[in-house]
């Protein structure tokens, strides 16, 4: 009966069903876009910034003092590389220093890397926008980020001086020449990080073949916790951090955006609720006499409420599969072809750590939550019309 009642006024019902479908589509599109953005951000963090896991001397990350190397680092690196779940493990020497040019200076994190491994680990080679990768035949080459290069007016082959302290606490300076300028999807990181050859940095730091960091890329994202535990048991003296601990802002962003997307969904459905309330109120007012008659015949108030509730639920749920389907089709298309957000500005997107091409992903894991919101909306929307119907006195209703 509730289902048949919906179709008494076909046009009105179709309009509200379409509104729900469009609202739901909009909500799913937002969820899909956020999911795509977050996935892209997490991939950036893992694949081109910090890897899945990192191993350090427990005291190193406090002040980045160069003396806190990984003792027996080579042995640890070898053992880590042998773990079947590990795709790639690479060493880095790291120190904090000052980069100076004739036009200015900036504090930077100097990363001593093995170029071939780093190209695979953080895709450094792919990020080069000017100049060339490290040339094995040349000495003292440096790779700087686009934002820093712009700030200090650096070009390929520009000369600069790096100053930092060695393990003995002595100030060390050395001149480097820019080999290439890279640009990632994370502008703040580009401004802060420079890359030099690990051997050259180690000589200056006085740590010979040692290093400060092992970066690990796993074959599967899902293995992070498991391998972190394995490494902690195997190397209890070292600090083993996952990408979530190294980049807590990304983890927080993912969690916050999840809640944020639900809030947007709520706002959309809240707006839709007014449309549903209006439709249901009209339906009730048109049927005052009929509802009065039903009460006169002996239909109790629970059944009247159920009738209105079911009508609202059916009206709401009728638009749900349509909205989900349109959302799925649209998401699938953009998931394949990508959604170009360069119109919003590459700089703006990269300042938040996002690329300009987003691949939205259908939020299948959130569909049950979305359905709950839809049903909740229907329930809330039916309350006012239902109360109106329940207040009807049969004698008065029958007179109309």
């Amino acid at each position, binding site marked *: *009966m509730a289902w*048949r*009642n919906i179709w*008494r006024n076909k046009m009105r019902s179709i309009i509200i069903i379409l509104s729900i479908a469009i609202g739901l589509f909009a909500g799913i599109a937002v969820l899909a876009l956020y999911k795509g953005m977050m996935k892209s951000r997490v991939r950036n963090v893992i694949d081109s910034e910090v890897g899945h896991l990192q191993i350090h001397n427990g005291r190193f990350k406090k002040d980045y003092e160069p003396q806190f190397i990984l003792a027996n680092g080579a042995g640890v690196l070898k053992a880590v590389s042998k773990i079947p779940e590990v795709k790639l493990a690479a060493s880095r020497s790291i120190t904090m220093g000052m980069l100076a040019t004739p036009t200015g200076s900036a504090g930077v994190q100097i990363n001593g890397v093995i170029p071939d491994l780093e190209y695979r680990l953080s895709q450094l080679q792919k990020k080069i926008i000017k100049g060339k990768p490290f040339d094995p035949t040349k000495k003292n080459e440096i790779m700087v980020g686009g934002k820093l290069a712009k700030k200090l007016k650096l070009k390929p082959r520009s000369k600069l001086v790096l100053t930092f302290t060695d393990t003995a606490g002595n100030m060390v300076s050395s001149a480097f020449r820019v080999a290439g300028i890279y640009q990632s999807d994370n502008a703040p990181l580009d401004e802060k990080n420079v890359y030099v050859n690990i051997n050259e940095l180690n000589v200056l730091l006085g740590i010979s073949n040692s290093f400060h960091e092992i970066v690990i890329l796993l074959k599967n994202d899902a293995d992070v916790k498991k391998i972190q535990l394995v490494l902690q048991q195997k190397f209890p003296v070292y600090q083993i951090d996952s990408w979530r601990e190294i980049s807590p802002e990304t983890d927080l962003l993912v969690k916050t955006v999840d809640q944020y997307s639900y809030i947007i969904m709520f706002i959309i459905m809240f707006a839709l609720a007014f449309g549903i309330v209006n439709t249901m109120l009209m339906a009730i007012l048109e049927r005052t*006499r*009929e509802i009065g*008659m*039903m*009460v*006169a*015949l*002996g*239909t*109790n*108030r629970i*059944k009247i409420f159920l009738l209105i509730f079911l009508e609202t639920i059916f009206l709401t749920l009728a638009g749900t599969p349509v909205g989900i389907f349109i959302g799925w089709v649209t998401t699938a298309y953009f998931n394949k072809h990508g959604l170009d957000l360069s119109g919003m500005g590459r700089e703006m997107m990269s300042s938040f750590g996002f690329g300009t091409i987003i691949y939205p992903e259908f939020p299948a894991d959130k569909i049950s939550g979305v359905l709950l919101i839809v049903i909740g909306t229907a329930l809330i929307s039916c309350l006012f019309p239902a109360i109106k119907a329940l207040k009807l006195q*049969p*004698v008065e209703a*029958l007179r109309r």
Partner: protein
Amino acid sequence: MKIMNTVIDAHDVSKIYNKETIPVFAVNNVHLHIKKGEFTALVGPSGSGKTTLLNLIGGLDNPDSGNVFIEDLDITKLSANQLIEFRLKNIGFVFQSFNLIPVLTAKENVEFIMLLQGIKKSVRDARVKQLFREIGMDDKMDTRPAQLSGGQQQRVAVARALASKPKFVLADEPTANLDSKSASNLLDIMAKLNKDEQITFLFSTHDQRVIDRARRVITLVDGRIVSDTAAVSTKHENANVQK
């Protein structure tokens, strides 16, 4: 004192509108006894209180004074929810404008009350078939009200009122919207059901054809009973007994 076989027993019932301004007695100190199996017409000019009295007897409205007993139960003491339950189990209603549920078929409309009462499907089906046979509409069971004529709709409404075998049926101007042929046909059906199933009918009407068919006629004017053919009959019966 309760009269034997009395289904409806209204004691000194009054209903007043506009109490705050100029009070209007829609029903004024009415005493009414209807026995089981009666076929009674409530007549009177417009505004004489026929519908109000039916509403009070049917528990759709509360009197300002007096009591309405249905068998031995004073329905003026029942709460709104108890009244709904009471109406469902005891009273059949026929309205002037049919009031069938438009989205249900004729069969579903008749079945509606039995569904509310939780009657088993097999019992429902048998009763629906029997009633449609009695109203002569076996072939219209699956038709929606909009596809039925006024007379057919009112026959379905009568079948609906009788579906759960109520103690009595209240019909408010049941023939008002019908042509003479449909009205006559409906009255035949009501009279037959009254006779066959011993169901008490109390209907308000202006229609002389209906009044002519009633076995008892109660006339209301300004909310008061001014004549009741049952009283006349009783007097005649008493006189005959004395002779």
